[in-house]
């Protein structure tokens, strides 16, 4: 990611077999699945409160694979919203996936058949997106399949268990697992920030702006899904204008 040209200079990367990519993806998916389990457990409890049974909750998690989207879905179901409202809610809450999917569309290897793009789309979650963009150079679709193969079961299983068992895990364990996903985000963001002052600046500005959004009256009323979209567009847009990524050598140009 830090240097998108690298894939051209390192042909052995692209020479990795699909199976090797899949295994790498599976490895990256394990901590995601663990984090998912904890979050999904609470999701399952919420599903029960909405009146869904464990099978419906599991179906929902398996097909949607989205935390905010599913929580919003409970709201829509609980208020007997119409189908159109459900559609609009899901589009708005998940709009960030549109951006992530757009970024992935440029990252994926060009020589792979089209159907891979349709399959990969299933795995576009915050976390799987994070590890996929963290891959050096171009992305093989099998990496995402591997990550989804170990991460998604944690999500589905957690939801079903939560719906069936409620709060049975010790509170301490739940609390500790709550940071697993954030730890992973930081593991994606910090190493490139170490190498590029611009990326480091972008990270700090993003976090500061995000903190501001949750504090300022008025702004804090914006749903978290929308906050992510607005901030992503604003900060990425500003960074793209101020520090364009050069065409020949794809690293942000250091102004200093």
């Amino acid at each position: 990611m830090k240097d998108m040209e690298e894939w051209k200079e390192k042909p052995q990367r692209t020479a990795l077999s699909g199976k090797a990519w899949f295994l790498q993806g599976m490895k990256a998916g394990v901590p995601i699945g663990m984090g998912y389990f904890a979050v999904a457990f609470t999701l399952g409890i919420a599903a029960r409160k909405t009146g869904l049974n464990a099978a419906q909750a599991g179906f929902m998690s398996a097909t949607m694979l989205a935390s905010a989207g599913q929580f919003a879905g409970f709201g829509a179901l609980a208020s007997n919203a119409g189908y159109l409202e459900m559609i609009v809610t899901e589009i708005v809450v998940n709009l960030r996936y549109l951006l992530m999917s757009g970024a992935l569309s440029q990252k994926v290897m060009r020589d792979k058949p089209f159907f891979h793009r349709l399959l990969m789309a299933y795995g576009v979650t915050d976390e799987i997106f994070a590890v996929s963009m963290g891959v050096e150079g171009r992305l093989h679709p099998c990496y995402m399949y591997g990550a989804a193969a170990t991460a998604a079961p944690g999500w589905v299983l957690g939801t079903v268990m939560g719906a069936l068992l409620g709060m049975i895990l010790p509170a301490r364990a739940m609390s500790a697992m709550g940071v697993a996903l954030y730890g992973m985000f930081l593991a994606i963001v910090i190493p490139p920030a170490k190498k590029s002052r611009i990326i480091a600046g972008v990270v700090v500005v993003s976090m500061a702006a995000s903190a501001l959004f949750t504090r300022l009256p008025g702004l804090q009323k914006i749903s978290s899904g929308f906050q992510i979209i607005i901030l992503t567009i604003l900060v990425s847009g500003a960074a793209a204008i101020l520090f364009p990524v050069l065409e020949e050598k794809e690293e942000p140009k250091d102004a200093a």
Partner: protein
Amino acid sequence: MQPDTNLGLLVMAVTIYLVRALPLALLQKEIRSPFIRSFLFYVPYVSLSVMTFPAILSATASFWSGLAGLAAAAVIAWADGNLFRVSIGACVAVFLAELVI
């Protein structure tokens, strides 16, 4: 009309899939615009940063254990960068912090 729950679940699942699939399906060509390329280059860093902070501070039982998790993750990510170790390290830090608190 009362919407059917199962049909509602299906409608939402299809909607979210389309949101994820359309850009991947439609943006097949390499984008040439330097602005859009740069924009998409920064999207992961910004979106992940925005999602992490300050949310991590309220993800655990207390602010302080959340802060411990954040500090541990930041330090391990800086020194090591391995996804699994950063994640586990953050969890352990939270667990230990909550034993003390």
